[in-house]
């Protein structure tokens, strides 16, 4: 069953096009990630699907309901849970009271205590929201997104601005969601986050989906070759390897890099090294989503993402 169906979605703001004709589906039970730099159109797309923004063209069904029909929007709101970008709650209310407030907006909801437990917020249940750290605030936001026991959960940049420890904590929670079979729609500009959490990724750039598939499929298709690195080798060895294999280079640190086409090639390099009794430090680098992104868009996501990261997490 499809929880999200999007067809040729377009969103114009005055003279800019934020979303430029994208189509995709999200299946029940999937953790689907929109991965892309800031300004790629990720948030605009999810906000349209959450019925927070109007669309310019195209069509979309969320949980089987049409986002452009008022009657359907009411049904969508009952069925989705949302962690918006820059989530905030009432400062003077406690964690529990804030989750309760959101819960009260639904006819049916989970027990507040259960949700608090799921997010490991028991110790903080009676702390005021204003006194929480960034990571805890995000967890309250995720709790609020889950309290109505939604069919589909939208998480818009759930770990942006968090320190590495807080980020991992949020990942643990999200991994749990994956285990219990929730359908999750995630947006992120962190490669690792998409790679660790998502079952399927759409790489979004300049309002378009540049590539889509499971993390492994994307890496296989766009990641390029594996690289074998021999640390601190000498030029002699480099020359010998260069005679036998393609794609052999040596950098200024004296490391030899060999791009490997297939497993056979790897074995023959290894046996050559064994025969030469070259006892060297050897490392194999497999391509990552970063390489995929670089290949597809021609630019690095991290550099751009970092510039935009101003939120403090203290």
């Amino acid at each position, binding site marked *: 069953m499809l929880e999200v169906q999007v067809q040729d979605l377009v969103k114009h703001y005055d003279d800019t096009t934020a979303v430029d004709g994208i189509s995709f589906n999200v299946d029940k039970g999937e953790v689907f990630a929109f991965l892309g730099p800031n300004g790629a159109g990720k948030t605009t797309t999810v906000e349209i699907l959450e019925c927070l923004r109007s669309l310019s063209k195209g069509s979309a069904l969320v949980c089987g309901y049409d986002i452009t029909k008022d009657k359907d929007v009411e049904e969508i709101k009952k069925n989705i849970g949302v962690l918006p970008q820059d989530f905030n*709650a009432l400062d003077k209310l406690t964690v529990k009271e804030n989750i309760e407030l959101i819960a009260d907006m639904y006819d049916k909801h989970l027990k507040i205590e259960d949700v608090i437990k799921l997010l490991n917020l028991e110790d903080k249940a009676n702390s*005021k929201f204003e006194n929480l750290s960034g990571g805890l605030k995000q967890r309250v936001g995720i709790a609020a997104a889950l309290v109505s026991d939604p069919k589909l959960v939208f998480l818009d940049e759930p770990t942006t601005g968090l320190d590495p420890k807080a980020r991992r904590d949020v990942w643990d929670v999200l991994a749990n969601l994956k285990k219990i079979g929730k359908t999750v729609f995630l947006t992120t500009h962190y490669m690792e986050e998409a790679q660790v959490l998502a079952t399927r990724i759409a790489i979004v750039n300049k309002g378009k989906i540049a590539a889509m598939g499971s993390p492994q499929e994307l890496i296989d298709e766009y990641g390029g070759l594996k690289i074998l690195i021999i640390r601190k080798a000498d030029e002699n060895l480099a020359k010998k390897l260069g005679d036998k294999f393609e794609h052999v280079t040596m950098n200024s640190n004296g490391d030899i890099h060999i791009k490997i086409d297939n497993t056979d090639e790897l074995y023959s390099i290894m046996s050559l090294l064994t025969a030469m009794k070259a006892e060297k430090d050897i490392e194999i680098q497999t391509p990552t989503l970063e390489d995929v992104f670089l290949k597809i868009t021609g630019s690095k996501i991290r550099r751009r993402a970092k510039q935009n990261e101003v939120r403090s997490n203290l």
Partner: protein
Amino acid sequence: MRFVAIFKAVTKNWLRSRTGLFFSIMFPIMMLFIFGSIFGGSNYVPTMTAAFIMTNGIIGLTSTNTEFKRRGIIRRLSITPLRKMDWVIGCILSQTLLNLLLTGIMIGIGWGAFGIRVIPDPLMILMIFLGSVMFSGIGMALSGSIKDVEAASAIGNVISYPMMFLSGVFVPLSIMPTTLQLISRFIPLTYFSDGLKASIITKSMGSILMNMGVVAALAVVFIIIGVLVTRWKEK
């Protein structure tokens, strides 16, 4: 009944903002003492109370709400099945509770310092309730249409200060030029202030009912405007 949950949450939020709460009650008390000591207190209890119920709605609620909007709290709630009407009513009722509290304190001071012997009766409470709903409705209508917090309090000031002077709160209308007296008939605060004066001091039934009718009608109008301008969806 979702407005009850909104009412509870928003009320708890201001009750715990101690500094804000302290000053929003201290300021009217201070003004009452200043004006009461200069000109004699009895009339200032109802008119000052009316004026501060107005500023609480037009300046106070407008800023709180624009702040909620800026921080994405209204947006977060708009993704739930909450209806705009419940949001608007919940906020208005919460503000009204604050105003009833303030009126109680003002009357208490009137009793202690200016010798006004008033026992709150149902008509008086209804008058305060309706007036508070009307001004909170204006607050909701303003904050629904204003984006940033600074603009909200500036606009709130621009609207409320002239109203305060033109409705006979500080200076009796009878000593004003006829043009200003005419203008005062178009100002919501005039009706609320006169109605409150009638229900607390003169007890003239005709005046109470006439002013209450106008205030009630305006309250409905502003609630409707408040709901219409509150946006659950962005462009």
